[in-house]
């Protein structure tokens, strides 16, 4: 199997003593790729994403991220890997007590970045996300689309190598969905590997060059063939 930014080798996941939610997943994602993860509800998309952003350990198999075997890393080393992954959660997971600015600044504060650097980086990011005039607003006063953009800004503020988004357009209108897709595309063009879980057929059709991973009953199909035989070099 070709090496990539993410490698799954015979990965399985079960919760407790239940049946396997995910079975024998083996695939590789290349650096700079753009991937859609699709499949019916209950197929295991969110569980697969949890494995990707290290919120869940697999029941079997091995996961390699950025060349490191996540299962062999000590508890003190995993945060370093997580800091290289940006996650846009389906329910945004914004901190209600923090302003849009402080929500976006969260990963930088965790990483110990100085406040002056945070001020300039977060200011630029909010400007990029079209939220410059909403920086002091709490999540409760933001619209769904604004909350979504804050969540995306937080996910990309550290310039992650891998961006994972779970149904990022599920709660926004079609125009906003296109705007968000343009944001992901822009990030991908500067080298970020993007994985988006979605049901949205229109979103898939808007990115014909993206590779598709289809999950059904815990097993992964590879309709574009890109997972097992990734094309050499980065996509144009």
């Amino acid at each position, binding site marked *: 199997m070709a090496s990539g930014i993410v490698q799954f080798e015979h990965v399985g996941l079960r919760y407790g003593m239940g049946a396997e939610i995910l079975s024998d997943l083996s695939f590789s994602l290349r650096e700079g790729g753009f991937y859609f993860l699709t499949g019916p509800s209950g197929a295991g998309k969110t569980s697969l994403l949890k494995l990707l952003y290290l919120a869940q350990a697999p029941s079997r198999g091995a996961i390699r991220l950025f060349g490191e075997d996540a299962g062999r890393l000590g508890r003190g080393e995993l945060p370093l890997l997580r800091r290289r992954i940006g996650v846009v959660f389906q329910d945004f997971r914004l901190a209600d*007590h923090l302003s849009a600015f402080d929500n976006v600044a969260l990963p930088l504060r*965790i*990483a110990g970045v100085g406040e002056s650097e945070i001020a300039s980086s977060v200011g630029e990011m909010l400007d990029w996300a079209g939220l410059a005039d909403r920086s002091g607003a709490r999540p409760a006063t933001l619209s769904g689309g604004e909350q979504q953009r804050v969540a995306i800004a937080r996910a990309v503020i550290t310039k992650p190598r891998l961006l994972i988004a779970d149904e990022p357009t599920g709660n926004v209108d079609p125009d906003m969905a296109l705007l968000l897709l343009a944001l992901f595309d822009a990030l991908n063009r500067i080298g970020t590997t993007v994985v988006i879980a979605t049901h949205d057929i229109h979103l898939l059709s808007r990115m014909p060059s993206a590779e598709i991973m289809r999950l059904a009953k815990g097993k992964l199909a590879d309709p574009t063939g890109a997972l097992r035989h990734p094309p050499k070099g980065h996509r144009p």
Partner: protein
Amino acid sequence: MIRRGSGDGERRLLPPGGVTGPMPGIVAAMMFLTVLAAAASLGLAYLASSLGSGRALSVEIVSADAAAKARDAGRVLDIVSRTPGLEKARLVPESEVADSLRPWLGDVTAVDIPLPAIVEAEMRGAADLKALETRLKAAVPSARLSTSAEWLAPLAGFIAALRWLAAGILLIVAAASVAVVTLAARATLDTQGEMIELLHLIGATDSQIARLVQRRIAGDALLGSVIGGGAAFLLLIFLGERLAALGSDLLGGMSAPGADWWLLLLIPPLGALLAMLVARHAVFRALKRFP
């Protein structure tokens, strides 16, 4: 290398708590009891020590022959005076002996009752009482040596039991305090569970998360410790003044050297520190449920 989060910014990551919930009040009550139990244990230890050391010593000479009794008393006084570790040796005047017997026997000077001669002294430091007794028996066979420790022994035993009781209460209160702080840490983890999980997922280390929780608990614990400890010290000062007003030699033995009482002042900050460490331990254990 994982860098620590920036101080002020990191402090804001959990919602501002302020003084909320019963935690400071419970810690204040625990600290009040802890300081009182420690003070009782310390005071009773000194009281038991002063009783056990038998500071007063007396030698009784019984003889129906007044001349022989006076002669023997002189010998005993001489021996006691020359014994290392004994001070202020004196022959108790017969009138004083008679006065001490008046409550039981009435005016003994009015009747013909032979009174014993009594030589008494104060013990300072270590005195070899066995050697003294041997010398006294050799010189005056009728001399009977006794120390206050002998007749105070049952009381000293009772006080020692009270002291262990106070120490036991101290341990129970300390254990209850640890349990309260552990529950408070778990409650904070439960109420802030979503935020803590988010911090974990975006790369916060266990130490960073523990620092956030323990900082909040330490603040509550410190406030409770200051209030509870302060109230206990005020009560101790009041009781100390009442004790001094009694003028009792016996209860005066409860007064430890000043430096030892100052040790009690360390209990509130140590309590807050313990709370912080217990909270840290509880957070680390709770975080194990996250991969």
